[in-house]
């Protein structure tokens, strides 16, 4: 029963699109009602399943899925001539990411209520995007994984180019081409994994049992890692995200920054590091050097920008850098911190972009120098933005603090020189984050109110609901982090076991 529900997670959005096909595009009321209902149903299913995974912690999992402890495991032959299966399952890590996605999709549907243009197509694209993101997080077969991974960039392009604002053509193209560049790197290494693995299987579990030759790992790991890192905007492949986000409509920004950018980090952890642990041990201490840009310079760049979406995009870049810091720490605490940061940042950036979208809908500008004092006219939206900011600067009580402190403590356990330097810099740059967040909030919300904004109205019930739910999620993780840490720990344990079991072979060249 639960397995069926689990598989429904990605089928329901697809069905919703099909159901809406015969409806006329002018009947927006019914269309929106259908989409909102379907998003809510998926959300409820995912929440229930998350609870189930939590409740099942410690009980024996499906043996077919070893070494991972997967629940709701489904394995059906699919493209038998090349050994690809339909393999899906859930452990603590991906069910939480699925929950995050469900929340953001739900919020995204609700905030795009008044989107301009063909609403029928827009909502269908959101659902398709949701399908692909759900698919990426659920699948444990690399072909399936890659199919969903590619589908998502395509939907993103259409939505930005057709419904975006500003330089939407440029932004959309930049985003899609960069992501496609990353995908090409991933695809190359996926074929490598299949042939080097030699078990005629694309299953992550099967491949993890094979020990891959070192020569292959040494070139495949960096290629795959960087390929995934492109979508998580690791320096130097971060350039697509500010332009992409600023051109995108609100819901797409929420989804892109909230869930899509986590797919890269998730891929790094689940595929690259899990399947090639030996190379990960050698390469990751060097990847840390790239983070100096993300974590240390990112906030400074945000300080110089005036467009709300650019500021948030650079803030995302810096927060995503912390995920990689946690991954590169290669300690259980670091990996848990990285996963926590994926989830926490998803909620907070979703809230950020949601409030920005709502404010933009009213002020018709995102330039913070033109705004001021709008807190008095929109207290609710203003408070929502400030709370997102507090969560972003790592205030205790919100999830951001839990994730960041876990990453810092985890990264400090790693005894390599470079990691220590970057960790110290990362800890010290929490000040810069505070500076740009407070500066933005102050310019936009406080001070005297310009004449032209006298007629602004506060959020309606639908918008308030989105804000309240997202804030509640942030607070919930921030105040009771114990259970989520437990869930993540159990699902990270096999990954870390594989990494710690990897003996570092002596090879010539880098790291040896």
């Amino acid at each position, binding site marked *: 029963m639960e397995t069926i529900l689990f598989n429904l997670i990605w089928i329901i959005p697809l069905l919703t699109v099909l159901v809406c096909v015969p409806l006329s595009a002018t009947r927006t009321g019914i269309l929106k009602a259908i989409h909102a209902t379907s998003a809510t149903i998926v959300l409820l299913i995912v929440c229930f399943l998350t609870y189930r995974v939590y409740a099942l912690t410690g009980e024996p999992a499906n043996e077919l899925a070893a070494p991972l402890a997967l629940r709701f495991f489904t394995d059906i032959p699919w493209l038998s001539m090349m050994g690809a299966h339909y393999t899906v399952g859930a452990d603590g890590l991906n069910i939480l990411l699925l929950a995050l996605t469900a929340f953001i999709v739900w919020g995204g549907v609700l905030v795009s209520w008044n989107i301009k243009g063909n609403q029928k197509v827009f909502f269908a694209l959101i659902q398709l995007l949701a399908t692909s993101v759900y698919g990426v997080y659920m699948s444990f077969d690399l072909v399936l994984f890659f199919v969903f991974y590619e589908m998502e960039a395509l939907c993103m392009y259409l939505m930005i180019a057709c419904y975006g604002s500003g330089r939407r053509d440029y932004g959309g193209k930049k985003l899609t081409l960069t992501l496609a560049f990353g995908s090409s790197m991933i695809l190359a290494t996926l074929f490598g994994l299949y042939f080097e693995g030699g078990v005629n299987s694309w299953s992550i579990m099967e491949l993890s049992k094979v020990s891959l030759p070192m020569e292959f790992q040494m070139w495949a790991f960096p290629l795959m890692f960087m390929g995934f890192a492109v979508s998580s905007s690791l320096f130097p492949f971060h350039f697509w995200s500010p332009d992409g986000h600023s051109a995108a409509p609100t819901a797409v920004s929420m989804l892109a920054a909230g869930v899509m950018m986590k797919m890269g980090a998730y891929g790094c952890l689940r595929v690259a590091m899990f399947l090639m642990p030996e190379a990960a041990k050698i390469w990751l201490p060097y990847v840390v050097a790239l983070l100096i840009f993300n974590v240390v310079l990112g906030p400074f760049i945000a300080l110089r920008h005036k467009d709300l979406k650019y500021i948030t995009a650079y803030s995302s870049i810096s927060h995503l850098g912390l995920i990689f810091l946690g991954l590169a720490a290669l300690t259980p605490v670091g990996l848990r911190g990285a996963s926590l940061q994926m989830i926490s940042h998803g909620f907070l950036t979703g809230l950020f972009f949601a409030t920005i979208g709502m404010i933009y809908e009213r002020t018709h500008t995102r330039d913070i120098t033109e705004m001021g004092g709008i807190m008095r006219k929109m207290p609710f939206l203003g408070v929502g933005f400030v709370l997102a900011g507090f969560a972003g600067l790592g205030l205790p009580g919100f999830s951001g603090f839990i994730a960041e402190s876990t990453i810092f403590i985890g990264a400090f356990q790693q005894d*390599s020189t470079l990691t*220590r330097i970057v960790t110290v810099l990362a800890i010290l740059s929490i000040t810069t984050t505070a500076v740009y967040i407070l500066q933005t909030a102050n310019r936009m919300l406080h001070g005297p109110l310009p004449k032209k904004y006298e007629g602004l109205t506060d959020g309606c019930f639908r918008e308030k609901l989105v804000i309240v739910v997202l804030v509640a999620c942030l607070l919930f993780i921030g105040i009771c982090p114990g259970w989520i840490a437990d869930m993540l720990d159990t699902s990270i344990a096999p990954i870390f076991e594989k990494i710690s079991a990897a003996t570092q072979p002596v090879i010539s060249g880098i790291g040896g």
Partner: protein
Amino acid sequence: MINDVTLGYLIFLCPLLTFVINGLFVGNRNAKAAAAIAVTLNGVSALSAILVAVHYFCSTFAPQKAVLFEYTFLPFIDDLVARIGMLVDPLSVMMLVVVTFISLMVNIYSIGYMREDRAEGRFFALLSLFSFSMLGLVVATNLFQMFIFWELVGVSSYLLIGFWYHKPSAVSASKQAFILTRFADSFFLLGIVLVSYVVGSFDFSAINSLSLYPFRTETIDLGLCVISKANALILGSILIFTGGWGKSAMFPMHIWLPNAMEGPTPVSSIIHSATMVVAGVYLVARLFPFFAVCGDSLTIIMWVGAFTMVFAAVIACTQKDIKRILAYSTLSQLGYMMFALGACKIGQAVVTTGWTASTFHIFTHAFFKCSLFLIAGSLIHQVHTNDLDAMGGLRKKMPVTYVCSLISILAISGIPPFSGFFSKDEIILTAFQAHHYTVFALALLTSGLTTFYMFRLFFLAFHGEPRHEGVKAGHVHEDLAMTLPIVVLAVPALLSGLLGKGLFEKFFTPGKLHAPVFVKLPEASWIPFAAIGIAVLALAIAWFFYASPKAKIQRALDAENRSGLYKVVYNKFYFDEMYYTVVRQFIIGGVARVSRAFNDYVIEGLLAFSVWFIHKLGDLVRTAQAGYLPFYLGTLIVGVLIWRFFGQLPL
């Protein structure tokens, strides 16, 4: 039924509940209800704290530590577990009483002070959040919990200082306060990470019982250098102190505190007496055994404290804004507390009297400083300006306030038998006994300056002729809700020193120390007399300049007469300007600008170049496909020739 654990929960949950109820449900719609809820629940909290304190100090258990309750918040690895708990020892019990009592007084006062504000609900909610955060901080059982509440204190102060967010000055002051303390906190966090990594635990009990001896041989790689773990701990202790440095607004991170006066006066009152700024001193006091073993960190603490003490007192002598004078006086008093902790170290050995004196001063200072700010608020409420220019002659119009402020000012000046005398005297004595004679002299000097600027304020505000039109016309009255807390606070301002002395000497010691402790200390019974003598002299000087019949008050207040050194001091040694220059030119105009330029030109440039390169490559291939037959033939022939000549090409 009602045991200590229940009371312990009540102390916390009441302010939290006030925050939730007022913030979410009552809001600004019903100001009366918000005030009633705030006062009732904070009253319950204060009552519980007092009951716990009475029970604790009267029991035979007294000076020991106990953990009333503790929850696992977030486990990391092994013993590295973040917990949320409630530690009970003399220091935390004393702080609980101070925080809840002051917070209750400020809440009552706010009923009167904020009566005409349209966001009373929000105000009471935030005020309770503030005291809740501070309560969590003082009962922390470990560094992680301390940091959590430390940050919450920071953010609630941000929200309260910027409470009137339509005022640009308030907004920028709140931003400055938050960012400067945050800057210090980043070092604090680094210190926590470093120390917890070396020690393997966040718990105060583990960190305080540490001895550096076993850590001498192991080394740790800090990136730029490899040092022994013992030195890493010393570095960690300094980093942790940096957190307190910023929070307690020690020089040179002091500028946020006077600027924070932009907030409503009840907020200033609670920041300066019980919450926020004493957190830094509290941190050092709490980790005192750790600091004591960590080499010279205590000496750094002593000099930072001593310098701030003199520096702030000098500035206070010239200011005109009544709240700023009080703010600098707080800085100066915090300097006393800080240096008393630092002065405990003599060579490798330690005296514990400084610790007792410092915590005693936290206790007495809270009452008279809170009272002074509330009085300042009352005055401001009458004349609608912070400026001493506009006050004067308020003695007859506000007799109750006058008497209460005299009590508090005598207390801060260190005149017996008022409370400040006892604690300040002990601090000065510690400096002498620990052979830090320079600091001892500075402390005596500052005690004179304190008396001078406090009486300057007193004479200018209450004596002389009224300089404000409203006061002249007689539109002055004493509001009940605002006067009641002032009167109530005058009692501890008068008596807390006399009554507390025995208590502090009996119960307050910093715990088990791993450094040798001096027990026999030199006698110096002449010091109190010297201190009183200096105070009386300073009082006389203040009277001569500002209250004697011949005093030229107008001339003293006139801006034209500021020149030379006086002007430099009046402008606070231009520290605000220096900060703005550094932040604007160096951070925003320098580092941030370069980062953005790097991103926009170098990275985007490389991207543009690669796009251009691919286009050019495409062009090249396209020209080869021009459909020109001789070109195809030519390449074919050349290709065949190359193949023939170079033979076995692996194609």
